[in-house]
């Protein structure tokens, strides 16, 4: 199987998923309503959370961006579990197509959804008072990083969706690990104000690096909120790329392996 063939098969599958989204727009609509809720809730309910030197809106938006695309990545696994249940994966697996194409297609088409979410979040964020204070190029890099996080998390979700036995399990198993990952981090609060035990975990949480990187690229940092003195948070952009590469290196082969074993019964 050549690389060109893999790309072409992946595109054929992505195209199919995009057709599906267009016929079933509720999925995209509701997945954009969810981040609106989060932005409004956090900005107005937790406004009193102390973020010295920066407004809470500006502080929390980076966290909400990362959290939203991570939550949304659960859809990848749910979609694959659904395809297994309906026998579509069996059909694909009996075709002479690239083994990874179904996964490449799915993760790519789910990025369309991620893009829609990102656009809505940017607009709503600006409406509630979030502003960037970096160069346009850095802002673009920040948006690109968010999409990249969305894409990479889709592969974790794919491995989960292909490993569980039903759509329902894919739905709950796909989400459950995300809560500690978002809460034990710098997503919603200043990492320095966490209790020492929690803080020690949070500073090594890849999510903290992602959010620190987004804050840095958007210029949503505050001199009064120093980054803990650990390498990933001192070099959050580079650390983020390393984390993302590591996740792909683990979950792409794992997902392909699960795909080869997947079966409708």
């Amino acid at each position: 199987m050549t690389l060109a063939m893999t790309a072409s098969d992946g595109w054929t599958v992505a195209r199919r998923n995009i057709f599906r989204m267009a016929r079933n727009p509720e999925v995209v609509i509701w997945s954009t309503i969810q981040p609106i809720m989060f932005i409004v809730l956090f900005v107005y309910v937790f406004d009193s959370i102390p973020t010295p030197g920066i407004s809470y809106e500006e502080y929390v938006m980076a966290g909400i961006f990362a959290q939203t695309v991570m939550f949304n990545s659960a859809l990848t696994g749910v979609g694959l579990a659904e395809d297994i249940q309906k026998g579509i994966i069996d059909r694909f697996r009996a075709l002479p197509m690239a083994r990874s194409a179904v996964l490449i297609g799915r993760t790519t088409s789910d990025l369309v959804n991620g893009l829609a979410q990102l656009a809505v979040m940017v607009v709503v964020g600006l409406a509630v008072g979030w502003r960037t204070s970096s160069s346009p190029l850095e802002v673009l890099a920040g948006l690109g990083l968010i999409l990249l996080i969305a894409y990479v998390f889709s592969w974790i979700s794919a491995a989960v969706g292909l490993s569980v036995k039903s759509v329902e399990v894919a739905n709950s198993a796909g989400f459950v690990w995300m809560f500690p990952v978002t809460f034990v981090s710098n997503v919603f609060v200043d990492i320095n104000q966490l209790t020492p035990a929690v803080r020690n975990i949070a500073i090594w949480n890849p999510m903290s690096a992602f959010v620190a990187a987004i804050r840095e690229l958007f210029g949503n940092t505050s001199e009064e909120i120093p980054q803990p003195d650990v390498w990933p948070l001192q070099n959050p952009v580079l650390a983020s790329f390393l984390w993302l590469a590591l996740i792909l290196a683990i979950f792409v082969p794992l997902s392909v392996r699960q795909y080869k074993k997947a079966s409708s019964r």
Partner: protein
Amino acid sequence: MTDTIVAHELVKTYGDVRALDSLSLSVPEGTVLGLLGPNGAGKTTALRVLTTLLRPDSGSAAVAGIDVLADPDRAREVIGVSGQNAAVDEYLTGFENLDMIGRLYHLGRSKSRDRAHALLEQFQLSEAADRPAKTWSGGMRRRLDLAGALVAEPPVLFLDEPTTGLDPRSRTDLWEVIGGLVQRGTTLLLTTQYLEEAERLADDIMVIDRGTAIAQGTADELKAKVGGERLEIIARDEDDVATIVSTVSNLGSDKPDVGGRRICLPVVTGPTALMEALRRLDDKGIELNDVGLRRPTLDDVFLSLTGHAAEESEPTPTRP
């Protein structure tokens, strides 16, 4: 004649369940083999191995001379598969479903489009071609799924219970379509729970139970084995059952099966046996509620070959 589909001593176990217990089969080029058996007999498991979807614990399999286990990618190029539960994408239109499969067979964009249109025409689905498949009837979806298996005009075709769950009309339609394919020389392996379906479509029938072949032959050979038609008599009075049995027993090719007021007797030539039975019973003045001839079913085949009824012999294995 060469064998286009070959399976040799396939074994697949799920825990304690032997889904395939040293199953061997071969299908000569251009012929149709029907795998007949109840749910859980191992039909689908065998098909999954032959279509590269499942690796057996041991044994070997080949399609069109290609080793399925050693070279699954090449095997996939020569096979078409249509599964048990119409694997069409319900949010895609009929055309989009087939066009996508063509592209994934690497037919190229324009050839995929042409094949999709031609198949929709051939399967009388053109009118609905641009509607999402979820608005289609079950029979139409099944035809679309079958069409999907034919996109690349594969020389080897696998159909897993192609008509299970369809209404009689759709079933007959689908039989006609499959019959047409076979005339064009496609080698076909199909699984079914219906003796009638196997008889209608297959040159050769293999009866499988608990993962292993228990009989093989033409429909006529199998029916001869199970005694052709059944003479079924329902007595009006339960007290008459013993008399009826003793009166008609010697007309049968095998012992009668009695349950309540129902007597079921395998017979070789149905009409003769029916008339003779009625004459004898009338002479004795025995009144009946019902009497008739019926063709043997999978149940009869099973009862006579295995001594147990064709119920689900093992639970269907879940995903490994």
